[in-house]
């Protein structure tokens, strides 16, 4: 995607605050969706709200857009209290889940809509629409109706329609959810590049952990209206704070002991034969657990080895790369060991 227009210049004003959510709660009737939530979003950041459906992430996004109001709490946009401002008076724009393109308008009319409502002079409207059409490579479709376009193209129109307004923040509600896998992969990269090029603040809602890890500068993992963890993707993946995060993002093995739970990613688990010669034994830490291989599943780049631990019903999974010592088969006895640095302790 072309990004040389719309460049804001990527200077280092990264830590400037753009949105502050303060003590937000949301109730629908007697249903408490968000108990109490604080969150600050910085200028130029790609922030992802990640969580299962019903975790309150879309509600949060809609409150920032002004389509919902918090039951209590304040929302600040660029230091201005916008809590009770209607959506049409906020400098944020949204890319809706099903795009919400106006079926009775052409692509160009759709894109122009926001500018017309803001009463931007006609000359400038033309210019900005032309720019954004070029940016999103939609020029040849300008006179089409949304229904005559593919899902991927409609998605571009939705983004163009929001971007053309030069919003302070772009809100994206699962914008790739309706597209097939390959297209989604391509558009993830395009979106990330677009955001980087424009230096614009993106708030992205998704339930797809892979998407979140690929695109975000920062991920906020939510569950039942509560922020479980707020970190960069690397930390979220390698050092989950809670059981929920460890479970929701990637695969994890849990080893429970009296007062703590150890989380170890499958690729960090190492396997050795139950009985080894002394020389081999000395090359790695002593196995913490022993068990029996129950299944080995081929996954292309790895084997997933499922092991039933001795003295318990628990099954753990280890990823074995083919350059590892040996390929395992069912019913073999194995020892399981790991390096202390790969242990993550979670409290909840």
């Amino acid at each position, binding site marked *: 995607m072309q990004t040389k227009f719309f460049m804001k210049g990527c200077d280092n004003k990264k830590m400037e605050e753009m949105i502050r959510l303060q003590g937000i709660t949301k109730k629908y009737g007697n249903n408490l969706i968000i108990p109490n939530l604080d969150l600050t979003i910085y200028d130029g950041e790609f922030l992802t709200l990640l969580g299962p459906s019903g975790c309150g992430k879309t509600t949060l996004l809609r409150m920032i*857009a*002004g*389509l919902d109001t918090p039951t209590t709490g304040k929302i600040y946009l660029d230091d201005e209290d916008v809590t009770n401002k*209607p*959506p*049409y*008076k906020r400098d*944020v*724009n*949204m890319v*809706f*889940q*099903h795009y*919400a*393109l*106006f*079926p*009775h308008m052409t692509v160009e009319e759709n894109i122009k*809509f*926001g500018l017309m*409502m*803001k009463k931007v002079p006609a000359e400038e409207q033309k210019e900005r629409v032309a720019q954004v059409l070029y940016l999103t490579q939609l020029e040849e479709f300008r006179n089409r109706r949304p229904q005559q376009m593919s899902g991927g193209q409609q998605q571009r129109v939705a983004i163009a*329609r*929001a971007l053309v*307004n030069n919003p302070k923040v772009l809100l994206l509600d699962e914008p790739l959810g309706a597209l097939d896998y390959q297209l989604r992969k391509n558009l993830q990269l395009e979106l990330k590049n677009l955001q980087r090029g424009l230096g614009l603040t993106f708030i992205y809602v998704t339930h797809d952990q892979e998407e979140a890890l690929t695109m975000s500068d920062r991920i906020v993992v939510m569950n039942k209206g509560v922020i479980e963890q707020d970190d960069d993707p690397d930390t979220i993946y390698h050092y989950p704070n809670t059981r929920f995060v460890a479970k929701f993002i990637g695969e994890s093995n849990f080893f429970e002991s009296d007062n703590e739970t150890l989380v170890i990613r499958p690729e960090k688990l190492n396997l050795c034969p139950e009985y080894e010669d002394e020389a081999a034994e000395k090359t790695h830490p002593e196995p913490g657990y022993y068990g029996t291989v129950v299944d080995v599943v081929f996954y292309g780049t790895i084997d997933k080895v499922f092991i039933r631990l001795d003295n318990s019903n628990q099954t753990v999974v280890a990823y074995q790369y083919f350059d590892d010592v040996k390929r395992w088969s069912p019913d073999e006895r194995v020892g399981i060991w790991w390096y202390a640095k790969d242990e993550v302790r979670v409290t909840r």
Partner: protein
Amino acid sequence: MQKTWRSHLLLAYSLVILAFLYLPLLILALYSFNESRINAVWTGFTLDWYKTLFQNRRVLEALMNSLFIAIISTVVSTVLGTIAAIALNRYQYKCKPVINGLLYLPILIPEIVMGLSLLVLFAQTQVPLGKTTLILAHITFCLSFVVITVNARLEGMRHELEQAAMDLYATPLQTFRYVTLPLAMPGIVAGALIAFTLSIDDFIISFFVAGPNSTTLPLYIYAMVKRGISPEINALSTLLMCATISLVVIAQILQPQHSSKNND
């Protein structure tokens, strides 16, 4: 093999039923062009019955009455009905069952009951029967149909579209003007056409609330039928049928095609 004879049988049966539905209407129309006044023998093609019809002052009067009543009833019921449908689509009502009852009962209750109850109302309140009472009655039975038709159209519309407009700086009024109204328009037009058709075609309710100087076309046809058979009735019925058919076809074409929904 089996499938073919089964579908042939279905085709044949359906054609017979369709013939049963349409043949009498075709015969009715056909005999409006027959020269013979008295019997069913075809004696030759003529337009005389239509000519006498158009020279008949009372027919023209009935036509004018019908059109006048239909136009006013359509306008009033479409405006009231559209406003109500938009509100019903946008807001949650605690008394929704009551509202639904008020909307659906006039459609579901036998027309004769609605007709005579309006007659009783007008008699008790001493409103003289005439065009006014006809218009009031017609608006009443058209209203529910308009609300339901417009509502069906609005229901197919995503609320997201209105939210998108608001997100793009449109005030509630602008949202209504540029998004809600244009998208609801086919539903509103269809509702208006249905109201017009119902009004111009109504016999039963009009039968109870019409006065001496407010004969509508269906009422005129009834009076003629009661007096005896004549080709003028055929001609008048044929014209009324043509009007109904065109209105139905237009309304149908304006309706969204729900089969296309299954495609995505």
